[in-house]
């Protein structure tokens, strides 16, 4: 039991922490609805003209499409590979399993900038084309540790004897997996899909190195743009990213619940 005074302090601290996390983003979102031609807070008037302006800028629309395509591809590829990897790491024992577990977690501790640089060198040294596929590869590497983690946690909660029971009842290995294990690890798979999507959609560091003028993700496009300009256009585009992430989180909350995802419940 936490004493009442401590609880008040704890409440104030939590409020401050949330404020620091949310307030700057909220400011950007409010600014994006400005009617002025300069960035100001609070905005002198409200309009959606900067959102309409965004649609008229082909480079931003193209980047939006690249980002969406890469994020969807990353989400699917990373979750598929992550699920297969998790099954091997959780359900089978073999020599070097612990080493592989660490190896698959390594991209988590690798700075994105360094990874992007290394990937760019790898691609150019082998005369491979730098295009949207390079970004996809980069994002799959970055998001796979999360996919493996989410699916592993889900798999650990499913007793292996369930699949054996299904096998004894006449289910082939694939049907046993599809009818028993897969429905039970679905929360982990949904979490992996959504998280890989968000991470990919927001990724800057590695994407900077493998983006080209024709294949550039939206965050990189924003970064390049504010290097030269500073107007409400950028707040509108940034807000689109925020809305996309919020929508993805809403999907998780509806299907799995954020608390369960991080093992809080």
């Amino acid at each position, binding site marked *: 039991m936490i004493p009442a005074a401590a609880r008040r302090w704890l409440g104030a601290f939590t409020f401050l922490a949330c404020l620091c996390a949310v307030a700057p983003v909220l400011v950007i979102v409010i600014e994006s609805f400005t009617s002025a031609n300069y960035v100001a807070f609070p905005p002198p008037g409200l309009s959606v003209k900067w959102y309409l302006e965004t649609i008229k800028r082909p480079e931003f629309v193209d980047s939006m499409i690249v980002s969406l395509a890469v994020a969807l591809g990353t989400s699917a590829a990373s979750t598929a590979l992550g699920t297969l990897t998790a099954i091997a790491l959780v359900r089978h024992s073999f020599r070097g399993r612990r080493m592989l577990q660490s190896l698959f977690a390594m991209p988590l501790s690798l700075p994105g900038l360094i990874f992007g640089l290394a990937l760019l060198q790898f691609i150019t040294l082998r005369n491979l084309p730098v295009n949207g596929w390079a970004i996809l590869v980069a994002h799959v590497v970055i998001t796979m540790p999360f996919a493996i983690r989410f699916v592993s946690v889900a798999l650990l909660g499913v007793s292996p*004897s369930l699949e054996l029971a299904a096998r004894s*009842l006449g289910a082939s290995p694939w049907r046993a997996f599809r009818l028993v294990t897969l429905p039970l690890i679905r929360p982990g798979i949904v979490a992996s899909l959504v998280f890989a999507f968000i991470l990919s959609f927001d990724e800057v560091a590695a994407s900077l190195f493998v983006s080209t003028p024709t294949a550039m993700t939206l965050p990189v496009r924003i970064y390049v743009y504010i290097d030269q300009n500073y107007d409400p256009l950028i707040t509108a585009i940034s807000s689109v990213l925020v809305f996309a992430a919020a929508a993805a989180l809403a999907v998780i909350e509806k299907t799995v619940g954020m608390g369960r995802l991080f093992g809080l419940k």
Partner: protein
Amino acid sequence: MAHIELKDVCKRYGDVTAVAQLSLRVEPGEFLALLGPSGCGKTTTLQMLAGFVEPSSGEIAIGARPMRGVPPHRRNIGVMFQSYALFPHLSVFDNVAFGLKMRRMAAADIAARVGRALDLVRLAGMEQRYPRELSGGQQQRVALARAIVIEPSVLLLDEPLSNLDASLREHMRFEIREIQRRVGITTVFVTHDQGEAMAVADRMAVMSQGRIRQLGTASQIYESPADVFVAAFIGQANLLRGRAARRGDGAAELALADGTAVAVRRAGPAWREGPATLALRPEDLRLAGERQPGLNQLPATVTRVNYLGSTLNIGLRAGEQDLTVLAPRDACRPAEGDRVYACWPDTAGTLLMEDA
């Protein structure tokens, strides 16, 4: 009804031998218990029957059909797991129907057979419940219904009662036996609980270190254990060590370490002269205040008396030897420290050779 035949079956994991040269025949409709301490190979044997584990060598046949290379889903077996392994995301109906759906049976037939199976385990009306909404005993009945509804050629039970509390366990062991008898299915039951094995099985195989030490009915094994391990594992046994020798009248005589000689008339055909152990059940021993002519006896001191309701469990110390005596409660109750004689007729006990 199918019989099961295991012939020289071995299972090795690296350097560890889990099952060694196991041969066994389970008759059609028989209820056989594989009994032994953990690590004796009983679960590995069951997993080889189910097809979850492939034997390193040897042959397994179910109903005369060789099982080498046959995956679990083509064996037509019913398995009941220690943890029940019910599918948590499926209702009771769908759990029981799972095996029938795998067999692509028509929906109407499935409903009829699931209904009959749930009637059999007295769970009619529970079809739409989920496993988490059921008690342990109910979950276990669903697991049993799911295993037998597919009309398997054999039923394999892996410690199915060990997760239940004591009173329910007692009840369920007879219920399982009753259902098995009614369905008439060949059954192999793995347990470490000798009381459970004795209560339900037609025959039991006592296993240790990957081998069957003795195969027989409960009374054969209890009354004539094959070796010291079986004698000590099944029920309680007082083990008197000494040297066996032939007496003038042809009966055996065991010379104990302190020089006392005891006569053994039920020596069994395998006995010979040499180091041996006499296994005596606690209920074979009687207490007496003075020497009893015509009986084997050891002078002893009472070290403890436990009242168990229907019986008294009395601990004795005779020289270097600890003895346990199970006496009816109407027998005179000795006190701690009393000097008594532990007596038994020469027809009691089993003489076991040391190296057997």
